[in-house]
């Protein structure tokens, strides 16, 4: 296990190689370095995980060096492995490798960017490194290092095609909005440090009992702020749909499988703090619930395939948050893992479709593709089934666990909201599948995908189905019991039935068998659709409350109002100079008169008149 440090080091090395060579390497070598470093990391992680599980230890620390040592504040760079971080590491390196592999094909001869191939993999490798630091750090500062690092890579990759200002805008929006969350999180770190004089997570968790409820709530909410930003939950969710501007593998890796779930990881990791504060936990659950509802409704109205998937990601993470909020820690992580599988699959498959259609992303310009693009279609179908949580898929296993625990721990509201959203999920997924793959063909695809592109799809497809079994088999041991569908109560049956119902309704509506245009085209229907389409108006409000005033004030104050004070002082001095200069007339008699006036002045002072 001493080789453990290689797991983050390998992607970092890959990044450094690609960075130093400045894109001068041949593309094949780049692909080898870029994907190979992550693949190797995955292998090492597998080996280390095997050893770890075999050793029966509950945790393992690998101290590397002391980062900062100032008085009590002595965070070190220490890799910490326990079941939670092991699962995360597996997802990051495993799914990450598959996506890298896929990207070697997807980005191949992407001529839009000179030397873009190398740059892309450099960023991707850096991302994997940062994400690993996030989950492997034993203290919150290292976690924060990874946290910010993945944010940076997300920024870089969203804006990968930097010539289009819209991409740049999306990238900056992602970075800045998540930074808002990061700020709250940083405050949480400060608070924790001054409470515990350490940021080491295990030490904090061990001592957490000493927190007052108020303090626990404060810490919980501040950390939640960070999580909400990173995981695109209400109210900081607005960046994620725009983040789809990045290349599709990026969306799969960062904005579906790994980075956006960092918030879930954080809260799961700090669960002992949340256990101390029912209020904070409650807020977590509500955030999840609201997000999953809002985003699943919004997904229904989107036409861009990647935006649909983005909203679906938000809603799935909403499930995870809800799970965390109701204390279903293992279920949340389980769903995190299965979601990584099937959402990566969905994105990659949609990427294949997009590539085949020459970067067309509007589902209404697709159609009838199921025969022409069989591998993407079947991948998409499997992924959708898992997303919808049809029985015997991985998504079913995890979502079912969440909903049932939500009912047990949280009550009707959480279960009902989750179930409603599950229905909506089924509805919009069906819509996406039908519109994209069936019906009349609108654009002619050309499929030239190679093994490096379809292989990941196949593997992820298998995982999307089988991952559930794996989860039940392994994670139960590792993370603690995951509630599962072992008991067939009526509620469980309803939970199973809702997605099926959603699929059925979707099929009826979107294949045209039931005409709902009257409802959709009505005033209310139209309005709702527009409202949902715009993401429930969050962007609109933020734009008017924060962005526009800030920009307007900046424009007005470009010349720095503070400087005015000094400019006025200077102008005053100049004015006095001119006035003074006027007295210097050059007339001798005026000068003499002044002498007389001065004489009078002095005599007045002397005689104490003045």
């Amino acid at each position, binding site marked *: 296990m001493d080789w453990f440090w290689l797991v983050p080091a390998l992607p970092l090395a890959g990044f450094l190689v690609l960075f130093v060579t400045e894109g001068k390497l041949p593309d094949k070598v780049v692909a080898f370095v870029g994907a190979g470093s992550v693949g190797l990391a995955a292998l090492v992680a597998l080996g280390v995980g095997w050893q770890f599980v075999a050793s029966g230890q509950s945790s393992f620390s690998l101290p590397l060096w002391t980062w900062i040592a100032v008085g009590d504040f002595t965070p070190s760079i220490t890799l910490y492995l326990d079941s939670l971080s092991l699962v995360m590491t597996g997802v990051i390196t495993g799914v990450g490798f598959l996506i890298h592999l896929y990207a070697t094909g997807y980005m191949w001869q992407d001529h839009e960017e000179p030397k873009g191939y190398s740059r892309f993999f450099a960023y991707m490798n850096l991302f994997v490194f940062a994400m690993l630091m996030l989950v492997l750090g034993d203290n919150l500062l290292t976690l924060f290092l990874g946290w910010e690092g993945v944010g940076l890579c997300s920024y870089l990759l969203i804006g990968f095609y930097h010539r289009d200002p819209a991409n740049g805008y999306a990238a900056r929006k992602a970075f800045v909005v998540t930074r808002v969350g990061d700020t709250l999180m940083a405050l949480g770190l400060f608070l924790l440090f001054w409470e515990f004089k350490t940021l080491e997570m295990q030490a904090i968790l061990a001592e957490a009992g000493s927190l007052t409820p108020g303090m626990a709530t404060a810490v919980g909410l501040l950390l939640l702020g960070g999580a909400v930003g990173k995981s695109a939950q209400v109210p900081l969710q607005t960046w994620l749909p725009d983040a789809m501007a990045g290349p599709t593998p990026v969306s799969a890796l960062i904005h579906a499988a790994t980075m956006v779930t960092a918030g879930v990881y954080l809260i799961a990791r700090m669960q002992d703090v949340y256990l101390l504060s029912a209020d904070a936990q409650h807020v977590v659950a509500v955030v999840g619930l609201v997000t999953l509802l809002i985003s699943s409704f919004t997904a229904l109205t989107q036409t861009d395939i990647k935006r649909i998937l983005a909203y679906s990601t938000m809603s799935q993470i909403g499930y995870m948050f809800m799970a965390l909020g109701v204390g279903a820690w293992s279920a949340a992580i389980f769903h995190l893992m299965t979601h990584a599988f099937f959402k990566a699959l969905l994105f990659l498959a949609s990427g294949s479709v997009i590539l085949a259609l020459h970067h067309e992303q509007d589902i209404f310009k697709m159609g009838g593709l199921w025969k022409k693009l069989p591998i993407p279609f079947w991948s998409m179908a499997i992924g959708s089934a898992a997303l919808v949580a049809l029985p015997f898929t991985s998504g079913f296993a995890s979502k079912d666990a969440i909903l049932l625990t939500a009912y047990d721990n949280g009550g009707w509201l959480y279960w009902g909201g989750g179930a409603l959203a599950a229905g909506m999920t089924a509805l919009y997924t069906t819509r996406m599948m039908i519109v994209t793959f069936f019906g009349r063909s609108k654009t002619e695809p050309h499929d030239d995908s190679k093994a490096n592109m379809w292989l990941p799809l196949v593997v992820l497809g298998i995982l999307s189905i089988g991952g559930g079994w794996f989860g039940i088999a392994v994670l139960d041991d590792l993370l603690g019991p995951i509630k599962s569908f072992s008991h067939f109560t009526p509620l469980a049956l309803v939970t199973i039935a809702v997605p099926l119902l959603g699929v059925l309704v979707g099929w009826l509506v979107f294949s045209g068998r039931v005409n709902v245009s009257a409802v959709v085209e009505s005033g209310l229907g139209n309005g709702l659709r527009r409202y949902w389409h715009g993401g429930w108006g969050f962007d609109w409000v933020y734009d008017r409350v924060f962005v526009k005033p800030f920009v307007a004030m900046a424009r007005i104050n470009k010349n720095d109002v503070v400087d005015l004070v000094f400019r006025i002082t200077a102008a005053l001095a100049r004015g006095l100079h001119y006035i003074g*200069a006027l007295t*210097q*007339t*050059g*007339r*001798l*008699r005026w000068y*003499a*008169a002044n002498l*007389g006036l001065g004489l009078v002045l002095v005599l007045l002072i002397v005689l104490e008149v003045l």
Partner: protein
Amino acid sequence: MAIEVPVFHVLMLAGVLFLLGLAGVLVRRNIMFLLMSLEIMMNAAGLAFIAAGAVWGQPDGQIMFMFILALAAAEVAVALGIVLQISRRFDTLDIDAASDFNG
């Protein structure tokens, strides 16, 4: 016959003379008159010295007066040289003409 003149009166006279001289400097434009006015101011001071010397019964006041006279003469000598040159280079004795410098 000694006539006692109160020192205060002499001082008043000196003061008046001084102010007269000053007023002359202020109102006259011809340099010659300016110089005369200056002489009046100086002599006012000299008169004050004599009065003061008389009060204390010392010769110092009168000696000062003689110094003043001597210096005034020297000053006027230089001044007249300057006046001569002014009348040549400015073609006038109006002091207001010599106001090239200002600001």
